[in-house]
Each structure stands twice: as C-alpha cells, then as structure tokens.
C-alpha cells in the first residue's frame, strides 16, 4: 500500500506492474538526462559574456537537435508500445470475477462454479482495529488465488466508477450498462489496496478496493466458507418467513 508522502510507485505485485516500473525508470532516466542538459544550457546562457545577434546557418547543430530528439523518442516509444500490447494480453484466465460499482461500495461475484457474491464496504474510521489502514480497509476482501491469471469484468449499477489497484497495475472504468474486461496475475501473496478512481458522488473517496492473494488451497477454503455462510443465511431467512 502507499505510505505517507510517497512519490513513486508502490512495489509491483504482478508481472505487468513490474514491466511498468521498469519502463517508468527508463523514461525517467531519459527525462533526467534532458533536464540536466537544459539546466546546463540555462546556466551557460545566463553566465556568458558573449553576445552575437547575427548567428545564421549553423547546419551542424540544426542536424543534431533534429536527429537526437527523434532518436530519443524512438528509444522511448519501442518499450512503450511493447508494454502497451503486453497489457492487453489475456492468457486463458483460471477465474473470472465480476466487480460491480455501486454508490458507494463494490460488490464481487464469483459465478464460475457456484453462485458466490458479496458486497465490500469500507470499514469506517471509528470501527478500525489497531494496525488497520484508514479509508483503505473493507469488510469483505476480494480473495484471489496467487500465480493464476484472473479476469475481472468491471461494471457499475448506477454511475461511473473505476476499479483500480496500483500494485497490480490495474485500472478499469465501471460504466453502467457496459462490461469492461481486465486481467492480472498476483505474483506473490499479500493484501493489495486500491481506491475508486472515477468521481461518483459524495462518498467517492470512501469505497476502497482490497484484493487478497492467497495460495489456491486457502482460496478454496475461503470460498467454501463463504458459500456455507450464504446457505445458512438463506436457510435462516426461509425459517423466519415460515415463522411469520
């Protein structure tokens, strides 16, 4: 998760995010070199005593400052395009999860095998236990098996939302009436936090996303427990109706 006064990216938790980090370092180094050069030129211009109002026809420097930027742009564009197409690959996902945005919570549906769905509300600040993160914790986390390709279908029930988890390198808009697809692989176990990334009303800042990547056995155990809880709730509701 992010820490206070953080400037850079969070640690990568998926291969795509690792590639994004590497590309960012590459682009930043080039930006750093250009900034150094410009800084040096500014200092040189300001401190020189030479003045010449009639400099004309300097072919060499014209060629240099035309060709060099073109070369630099190519050096940035090639890895950029590579990672752009890499991000669009969806390699046979093992699991599909529907993430639906509501005002102001997320709901997740795991309908591949059984009908499993739950809502995920932010834990209010006054209800946090020591060690939990303010405005980031949710009562039910989206649990996924690690090292498995996961497809997430993002949509919304009311207004625009956006499902984003920075450490997984994922952001996808939830548009009412539309299914947007994204995918990720969690390369390590852990808890990864994100926040809604499209303005959606008064509590837009208070509908976080929490993804928990666990080993497959733990995921199977978690899903079976949740299914049992859902079945028991249904039975309780039916019994209450009968009694009424």
């Amino acid at each position, binding site marked *: 998760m992010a820490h206070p006064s953080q400037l*850079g990216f969070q640690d990568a938790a998926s*291969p795509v995010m690792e590639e994004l980090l*590497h590309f960012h*370092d*590459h682009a*930043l*180094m*080039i*930006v*750093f*070199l250009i*900034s*150094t*050069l410009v800084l*040096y030129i500014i200092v*040189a211009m300001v401190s020189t005593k030479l003045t010449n109002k009639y400099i004309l026809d300097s072919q060499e420097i014209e060629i240099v400052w035309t060709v060099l930027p073109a070369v630099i742009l190519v*050096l940035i564009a090639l890895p950029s395009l590579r990672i752009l197409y890499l991000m669009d690959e969806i390699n046979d996902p093992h699991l599909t999860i529907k993430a639906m945005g509501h005002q102001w919570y997320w709901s997740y549906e795991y309908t591949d095998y059984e009908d499993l769905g739950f809502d995920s509300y932010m834990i209010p600040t006054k209800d946090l236990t020591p060690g939990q993160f303010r405005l980031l914790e949710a009562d039910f986390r989206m649990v996924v098996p690690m090292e498995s390709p996961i497809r997430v279908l993002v949509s919304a029930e009311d207004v625009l939302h956006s499902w984003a988890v920075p450490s997984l390198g994922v952001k996808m808009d939830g548009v009412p009436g539309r299914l947007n697809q994204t995918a990720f692989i969690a390369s390590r176990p852990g808890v990864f936090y994100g926040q809604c990334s499209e303005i959606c009303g008064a509590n837009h800042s208070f509908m976080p996303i929490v993804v928990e990547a666990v080993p497959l056995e733990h995921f199977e155990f978690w899903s079976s427990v949740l299914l049992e809880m859902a079945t028991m709730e249904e039975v309780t509701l039916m019994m209450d109706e009968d009694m009424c």
Partner: protein
Amino acid sequence: MKEESDKRKGMKFLGILDIQNTPCARESILNGAGGSVVAGLVHFLATSRVKRSFDVGVAGFMLSTLGSWLYCRYDNAKLRVQQKVIQDGIKNKVIYEGTTLDPTRKTRGDA
C-alpha cells in the same frame, strides 16, 4: 524498521531519480561521470579551450550515461525474460512430470 526505511530511502538525483534502488542507475551515472571527465579532459588537452571543454564534458556525460543505461537495461531485460522462462519451466515440470504432456518424455513408436 527505521533502519529498513533508511536503507530504502536512497539518494534522489535532481530530486527525481532514486539511484540506489533503481537497477542500472548507479552504474550508468558513474560511467557517465567517467565519460564526462575523459571527454572534457581530452578536448582540453587537444584545444586548451576551457569553456568548450566543459560543454564537451557535459555532452560526454549525456552520451556515456545514455549508452551505459541502454546497454545495462537491455541485459537486465534479457535476464528477466530468461528467469521467467526458467521459473515457468520448473513449474510446468512439477505439474506435468510423468504425464502425457511432459515434453521430456520419450514417445514410444507403438503407443
């Protein structure tokens, strides 16, 4: 915890580039500094022009840093791809060993 956070803080060049924690950054900056000194010195010894030698030194820094960076990052990227292939191979071997999908299994002619 405090020691870990101090170690990870690193040095930020021009306030933006974290040299310690970015792979290849430290080597590139050091190579660039070396290239800059060499280029500037050689130009000065040849021409005795101080200001122009500084300019050549800066240009040398740019080119040496960029060249060293690109070379190191390319090697790094190749290494990462190889690591990924090896990891996938180990995982697949564990999963498929002894089955019909095992690529190392010798096929029998009468099968």
